[in-house]
């Protein structure tokens, strides 16, 4: 009699209980597993028919059980199937499902005597099926026992008596062999060695490993990770094996197997394998070694685990790479993938299988480092990197230092083996793998509801209907998505003023920041032009290298919805050249250690971009109103002599005419004809990003001053924005800023933008508005209509709610900055695009457009 038995199962497995009706499966499951881990056929029967014993609905019940199980397995959750499973047909389906999700199927058999089962069932009033059922189950079970391994169960656990069942005290969950999430490195991951011992030794030396007489070790405890294909083709396979085995044994290295290693093991095991592709060299070299060594090598290679998941799941290493849905899982298919990768089934012109480029579609969170396919230069693609640089073919042996992401290479001393396919493919493009891959983005990550993680705010949710709108605008009008690293956020006005005939007044803007605990703000003059994002590089080569864009000039200017600002490319490039010259002249590029910059700007005149709107809307209203009102007043004044009762109407319409004339001068202030390049004015106000850096940590004074330093180099086009710093606790400082606003708007200016002194400010509740606008009374006529200042209109317009606008401004700000961060960290374009697409989608949320 055994007691206190602990059963071991793999932590991610599909446990199929097998036992006759009445064998106590459900009781056993409840004792040892979480309720949510158990998928019971009876429960499913109940859910689809209100009767847990209804045998008629078996197939529906099974479909439900299968569905629940598949979702659990997809989410990497251990699952227990509580059903009789005495027939091989029933078990076959579960094994198939386990394979589909690359989890290990485990059979847990409750092989109890008929008497026990019958007695148990007799106690239950709801189990009233024929006497023959239990004996039949038991006979089916007994016939099944021997076949279970053959059917595909990786572990079979059999409990043969009530005593054995009761003796089970716990079920221990063993981590999978590939789970080394606790090992955080740092690592030096080394590509395919193929017997190139000399290069390996040199590489280890370069990586500062030292041989202590027994094995190589790193003085700082770094560990080597070998990506497999240690053997074949090269000159010193046994020496390489010795070195790696020593390190792995000593714990200074990890190793995953490659397809060549696996084939060698099979040969060592006496299997019939074709001696091709460099296996002959290994066999020859190993025959000079002792039998003892060959046995040891066999055991070592046999024991290698297909892949490892390291550093809390952030790093995956496998010889040929690994798709996301296979990581940390175990199945024959997973091993095959790790050894060979995925092939399309086609054969290329060199007679080699065509590899399916899984990395091009990789969207997993873990970094995947792999080898297997020789490449001239390791390149990142969607967080994956192939570091097999074909040492044995005369290339180099490469290591990737993790987490530093640095590459260290040693040139091959010679060509040991002529490659079948040339190592250097015909590559005409200068674009990186990632940039080529980014030429076409996948729609799947944009449509439907999306949740985007951001650094500055909580997750931002994009609703499906907004994504629909954004997709249309983006596809029909936007520039090449590779340019779109940023879209500017919307900006909320200050709270509504009650002062005189003002709808907005500076005091409410100051008050907002004061209440948020901000002591200092920056007031910037608000230019009335059009928002423009401007990207400029030193030359076209820079744009190609950094943005992966060819033949589109030295940069771009696009609007807040991602459309090209200029219809004529020549104008755009001419302006960008002027900007570039100014940046060069001011030493900007050297100072910022960059070859490019992305700026947030206002581009004037308004009429340059809004001409159509001006003609169809603003000027039209002005023309209609002027002529209609002039005509009306002529009649009213003529009739007034005869009918004094018309005095009131006359005054009313003459007031309307005054307001319309103010309205016309309001928009007229922002319009001028553009006949030459110098008629454009660009006023940058944020330095958004340069190489490797997003400038949100610098305060607005810094932004303004830095911008001024290059604007001064070309004052004919570049405009340094007037600004002042206001101490909110100093009444005098506040008053002066208010007077400044009055004088700006008195001269027809749009108004000003108040920003917290620091780019990113938070209060108890989270982010504070990054900016608040205070627009001038006259300017607002072009927003609220010519007659908005009439008392009867103003009182109604004062009731406006800012909540939706403010929430939107915050989310768009967070997304905008997130996009920039992702771009400078060289994330795949789809990660960047998700953010800019998100801003555009949010812009389609229904918010009062006058705010």
């Amino acid at each position, binding site marked *: 009699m055994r007691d206190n038995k602990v059963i071991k199962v793999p932590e991610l497995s599909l446990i199929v209980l097998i036992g006759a009706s009445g064998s106590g499966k459900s009781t056993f499951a409840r004792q040892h597993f979480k309720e949510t881990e158990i998928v019971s056929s009876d429960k499913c029967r109940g859910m689809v028919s209100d009767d847990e014993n209804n045998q008629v609905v078996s197939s529906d019940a099974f479909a439900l059980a299968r569905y629940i199980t598949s979702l659990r397995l997809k989410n990497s959750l251990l699952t227990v199937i509580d059903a009789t499973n005495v027939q091989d047909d029933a078990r076959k389906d579960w094994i198939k499902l386990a394979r589909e999700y690359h989890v290990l199927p485990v059979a847990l058999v409750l092989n109890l005597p008929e008497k026990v089962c019958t007695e148990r069932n007799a106690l239950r009033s709801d189990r009233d099926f024929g006497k023959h059922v239990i004996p039949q189950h038991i006979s089916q079970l007994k016939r099944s026992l021997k076949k279970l391994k053959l059917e595909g169960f990786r572990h079979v656990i059999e409990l043969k008596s009530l005593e054995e069942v009761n003796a089970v005290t716990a079920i221990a969950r063993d981590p999978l062999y590939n789970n080394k999430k606790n090992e955080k490195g740092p690592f030096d991951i080394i590509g395919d060695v193929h017997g190139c011992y000399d290069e390996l030794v040199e590489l280890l030396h370069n990586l500062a490993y030292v041989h202590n007489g027994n094995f190589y070790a790193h003085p700082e405890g770094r560990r080597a990770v070998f990506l497999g294909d240690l053997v074949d083709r090269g000159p010193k396979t046994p020496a390489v094996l010795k070195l790696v085995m020593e390190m792995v044994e000593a714990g200074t290295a990890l190793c995953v197997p490659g397809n060549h290693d696996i084939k060698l093991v099979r040969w060592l095991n006496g299997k019939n394998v074709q001696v091709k592709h460099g296996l002959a060299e290994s066999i020859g070299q190993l025959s000079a070694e002792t039998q003892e060594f060959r046995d040891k090598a066999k055991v070592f290679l046999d024991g290698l685990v297909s892949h490892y998941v390291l550093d809390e799941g952030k790093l995956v290493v496998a010889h040929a790479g690994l798709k996301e849905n296979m990581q940390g899982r175990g199945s024959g298919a997973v091993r095959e993938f790790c050894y060979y990768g995925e092939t399309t089934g086609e054969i290329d012109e060199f007679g080699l299988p065509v590899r399916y480029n899984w990395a091009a579609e990789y969207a997993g969170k873990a970094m995947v480092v792999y080898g297997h396919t020789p490449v001239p230069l390791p390149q990142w693609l969607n967080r994956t990197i192939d570091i097999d640089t074909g040492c044995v073919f005369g290339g180099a042996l490469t290591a990737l230092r993790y987490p530093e992401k640095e590459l260290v290479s040693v040139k091959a001393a010679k060509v040991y083996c002529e490659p079948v396919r040339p190592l250097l493919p015909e590559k005409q493009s200068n674009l990186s793998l990632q940039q080529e891959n980014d030429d076409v*983005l996948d729609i799947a990550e944009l449509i439907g509801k999306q949740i985007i993680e951001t650094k500055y705010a909580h997750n931002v949710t994009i609703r499906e209907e907004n994504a629909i709108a954004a997709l249309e605008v*983006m596809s*029909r009008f936007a520039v090449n998505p590779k340019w779109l690293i940023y879209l500017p956020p919307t900006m909320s006005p200050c709270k509504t003023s009650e002062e005189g005939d003002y709808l907005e007044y500076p005091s409410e803007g100051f008050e907002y920041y004061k209440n948020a605990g901000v002591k200092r703000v920056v007031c910037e003059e608000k230019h009335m032009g059009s928002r423009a994002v401007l990207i400029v590089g030193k030359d076209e080569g820079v744009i190609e290298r950094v943005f992966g864009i060819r033949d589109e000039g030295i940069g771009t200017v696009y609007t807040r919805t991602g459309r090209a600002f200029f219809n004529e490319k020549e104008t755009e490039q001419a302006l960008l050249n002027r900007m570039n010259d100014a940046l060069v002249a001011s030493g900007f590029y050297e100072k910022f250690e960059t070859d490019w910059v992305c700026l947030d700007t206002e581009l004037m005149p308004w009429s340059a971009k809004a001409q159509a709107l001006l003609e169809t809307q603003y*000027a039209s209203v002005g*023309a*209609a109103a002027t002529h209609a009102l002039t005509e*009306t007043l002529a009649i009213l004044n003529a*009739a007034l002599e005869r009918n004094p009762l018309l005095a009131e109407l006359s005054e009313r319409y003459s007031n309307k005419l005054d307001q319309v004339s103010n309205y016309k001068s309001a928009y007229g202030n922002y319009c001028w004809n553009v006949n030459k390049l110098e008629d454009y004015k660009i006023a940058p106000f944020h330095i958004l990003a340069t190489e490797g850096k997003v400038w949100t940590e610098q305060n607005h004074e810094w932004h303004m001053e830095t911008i001024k330093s290059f604007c001064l180099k070309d004052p004919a086009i570049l405009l340094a924005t007037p600004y002042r710093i206001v101490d909110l606790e100093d009444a005098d400082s506040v008053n002066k800023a208010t007077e400044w606003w009055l004088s700006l708007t008195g001269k027809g200016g749009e108004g000003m933008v108040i920003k917290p002194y620091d780019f990113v400010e938070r209060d108890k509740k989270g982010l504070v508005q990054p900016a608040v606008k205070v627009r001038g009374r006259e300017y607002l006529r072009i927003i609220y209509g010519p007659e908005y200042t009439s008392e009867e209109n103003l009182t109604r317009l004062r009731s406006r709610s800012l909540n939706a606008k403010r929430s939107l401004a915050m989310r768009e700000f967070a997304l905008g900055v997130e996009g920039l961060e992702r771009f400078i960290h060289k994330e795949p374009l789809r990660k960047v695009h998700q953010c800019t697409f998100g801003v555009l989608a949010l812009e*389609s949320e229904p918010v009062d457009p006058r705010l």
Partner: protein
Amino acid sequence: MLLTITNRHKPATDLSFLLHKHPAKIQSVELSNGKAHVFYERADDEECTAVLLLDIDPVGLVRNDGPKGNDFALEQYVNDRPYVASSFMSAAIAKAFSTALNGRCKDKPELVDRPFSLEVKLAVLPVKGGEDFLRKLFEPLGYTLNVTTHLLDPAFPDWGQSRYYTLILKNEITVQQLLSHLYVLIPVCDNDKHYWVTEHEVEKLLEKGKDWLDTHPEKKTIVRRYLKHQRSLANKALEVLVSKNEEDTELLDADFDAGLDAGPADEAEKVIRIHDQRLIAAKDVLLHAGCKRVVDLGCGEGRLMKLLLAERAFDYVLGMDISYRSLEIAKERLKLERFSEKQLSRVRLIQGSLTYRDKRIEGFDGATLVEVIEHLDQPRLTALERTVFEFAKPATVVITTPNAEYNIRFPDYKEGKMRHSDHRFEWTRKEFESWASAIASKYSYDVSFSPVGEVDVEVGALSQMAVFKLKTEKEEFLS
């Protein structure tokens, strides 16, 4: 905003009896978004000028409708409606002068049918179609016109003329006729309505136009514009109005479908025929290629899909378009809600873009892009090429696009002017063929070209079509 009616036929004040408004008073009537004031500029024996002055509430105008999304737009409050003669003016006429409009006059019934020499001033009247159109509307009814145009903004003469006119009309006519003409024709000039056009409008139009609309040479345009492009309503009105003949209704359909605005009849017909030809040509290619699963990329409002669904040879028809609105219309046009489950399993509509890779369009053996590519900026075509030919990879692909050479045959031809405001480019046959051939060789397709429409020896047909066939492995090996 302003309408004046002047009578100089002694005693001129007869007008005030007809209008049923006292010459010494200022009267106001309530409108849905404001008021209209009625008073007299002058009212004596010599001359009587009645004034109808609109006082539209600009804030209320927007508030009542509520903000309709934001459409990336800002223009709601800045609106010409308070200052122009529009359907608001018609409503004001109906309300302030209802007795006159209905041909009643309590005190002097004999005046109702008497023609007066009347002068009317409208300030300002928005006109879509310009002075020509204005004359075409009023001259057949016997009016003489004095038209004053207005610059958009005298401070910016480069911006050109506005669409607003100050209009003086003179005619020998009864007051009722005058008001009926104005009631119908003001919104027709403006081509807009401040309210949703319902079936009720048909009755109003027929009633107000009973004496004159049937014989007016511009009746089709008047009906269509008055009913604000409600096609079925317009047809209904025409059915009543016109002694129907086939040609007329066909033409009407043509106008709507092509989105044309009263172009010359033969032009409209030509455009329609060509579009149908394109669709049929595309369908025939797919049929002959033996395609089973087909996808219409850029399906728009579903015209090609309708043809495809009618063919039993196609097992499955997928329609994709970037415009959600178009898809909604397609859904209605195809009458999907009336499909049986089995029929529904053959068809699907999805929103998608040709510049993004899309797994949903993979696995089809036929694809069509009928008049689609020219709606993309040329640099974005690279993305489209890869989406269609590298990733979706249907065995047969049909692409049609306008033949730019043909444009010179259009009566309003202007160098560089494209056929549609959203066309980003239009290609000559040579340009199209070189683009398509490059794609074919890059992605292992064979390509052949054919004209669509009647071929002009010099400039080719209106439209051009390329048919791509994916090379089989064997062909590829041989090539």
